[in-house]
């Protein structure tokens, strides 16, 4: 009688088909891929995966991506915490303008910043380091982190702060011991979004790195264009870039929708 499930099911099938196709390709040999259309790999092979895990140009791409995403996540959350607290608790000179200005950076097309960033980071001598990418991604992740955290913090009644001060807590002690545990899920959601946007952004990450700090997804397209049409390898690398995201989603699944609603992302 109840046919509600049809729509989500169809939608999920629509979402999964391209991913299945990538998975299917990744277990085929190059000859089989170019040989024609088939729904399942006839000769099941993990050769492409073996190649990625043994060739340093491939797996170092992974390590680079994970390093800059982590650095970016830590920096963004660490500096956004006090700022979001200030925005949610105090009025100060120019606070509203500052807040809007921060948000405008979320609206800046990375294509606009690609060239000036290249010049800025080469002047600072940071070109081709993971730190450069981590700092560049702060452009959009810090405003986002402030925005989300401010939403969560405003949900905590101010009386809690005041009671803690009366009880003799100093500000840092109050912030770490009482306030941060209260907004723990907010911090989790923020870290998730910082991870997400830093992990998926490629234009800046690609522009700022050349050899030693190249992200995995850039290694992927580069290899695909230089070494002929190695679709199997390309597909395997693609599958592997999906995995970290899938793991992260699994851990935050109960907070995503809530975080979207509360954090006003």
């Amino acid at each position, binding site marked *: 009688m109840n046919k509600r499930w049809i729509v989500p099911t169809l939608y999920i099938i629509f979402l999964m088909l391209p991913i299945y196709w990538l998975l299917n390709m990744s277990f085929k040999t190059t000859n089989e891929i170019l040989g024609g*259309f088939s729904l399942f790999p006839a000769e099941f092979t993990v050769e492409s995966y073996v190649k990625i895990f043994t060739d340093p140009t491939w797996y170092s791409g992974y390590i680079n991506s994970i390093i800059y995403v982590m650095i970016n996540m830590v920096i963004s959350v660490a500096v956004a915490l006090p700022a979001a607290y200030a925005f949610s608790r105090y009025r100060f000179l120019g606070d509203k303008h500052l807040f809007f200005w921060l948000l405008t950076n979320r609206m800046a097309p990375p294509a606009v910043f690609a060239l000036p960033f290249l010049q800025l980071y080469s002047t600072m001598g940071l070109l081709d380091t993971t730190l450069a990418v981590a700092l560049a991604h702060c452009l959009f992740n810090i405003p986002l982190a402030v925005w989300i955290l401010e939403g969560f913090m405003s949900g905590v009644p101010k009386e809690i702060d005041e009671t803690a001060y009366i009880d003799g807590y100093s500000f840092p002690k109050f912030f770490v011991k009482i306030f941060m545990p209260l907004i723990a899920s907010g911090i989790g959601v923020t870290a998730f979004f910082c991870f997400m946007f830093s992990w*998926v952004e490629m234009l800046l990450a690609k522009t700022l790195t050349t050899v030693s700090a190249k992200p995995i997804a850039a290694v992927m397209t580069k290899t695909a264009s230089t070494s002929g049409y190695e679709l199997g390898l390309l597909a395997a690398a693609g599958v592997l870039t999906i995995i970290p995201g899938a793991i992260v989603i699994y851990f935050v699944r109960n907070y995503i929708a809530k975080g979207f609603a509360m954090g006003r992302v």
Partner: protein
Amino acid sequence: MNKTLNHRAWWMVLPVLILVAMNAVIPLMTVVNFSVQEEFYGEFSFIGMQWFADTLTNERFQNALIRQLAFTFTILLIEIPLGVFIALKMPRSGRWASVCLVLMALPLLIPWNVVGAMWNIYALPDIGFMGYMINAGAGFFGHDPANGPWFDYTQEPVAAWFTVILMDVWHWTSLVVLLAYAGLQSIDNAYYQAARIDGASRWSVFRYIQLPKMKHTLTIAVLLRFMDSFMIYTEPSVLTGGGPGNSTTFLSIDLVKIALGQQDLGNAAAMSIIYFLMILLVSWLFYTLTMQGEKK
């Protein structure tokens, strides 16, 4: 919440300010600088608004802008209603709800050029699932395969547009679903019970209970989808490279071609500023209009 006046709060905002300013102000100043100067063998001279006038009257820019607008409006028209529709049909709670959420969020966490590469393979006319199926369908309805594939996004602008739009729908509709779903979750069951007692139709439940509750998160959804689709670069550039011809060259792709490809700094800078201002203006208008509506 009533906030205390405290100017020392500036110290707490300072680290954010320094980091974002370094990333935003310095590059923006560089762009502004380039946009009003002309380079001639390393010597810069002030030329005023010349680049802006050039860019605005340039047919290439105008065409890219038209394509950009067409793309953004098309995907908004598809993704917002579709996302709301799916969110309404989602299970409200329990194990299936979280399975659905995890699976639906998956496309959002795939690096953008992998999304492009994935669709590039998926839509290939001979070995991609989608391309193959469409062509098989066309063959069934009497298309002669000897004339080349009926659906080939590397050759046909219409097929390329179809693929790019379908890719974006695949990639981002889940964001709308998640946001709309979050809005729906905040509705108390008592509303539905009251509606049932009053004998309200399904449409009026949607119009008078669900839609108003979703309004806030939907505003965010429209805003985010507008901004991000207006800035889209990586996915179409990997999928079609802006082609065939220039048929899927959107603003960002054109900008990167001018700036990094041709090193034409003046034009690129002027175009960057015009581009940024457009996004800012539309977002600001939309934001203030909906916020005003909410206050009333």
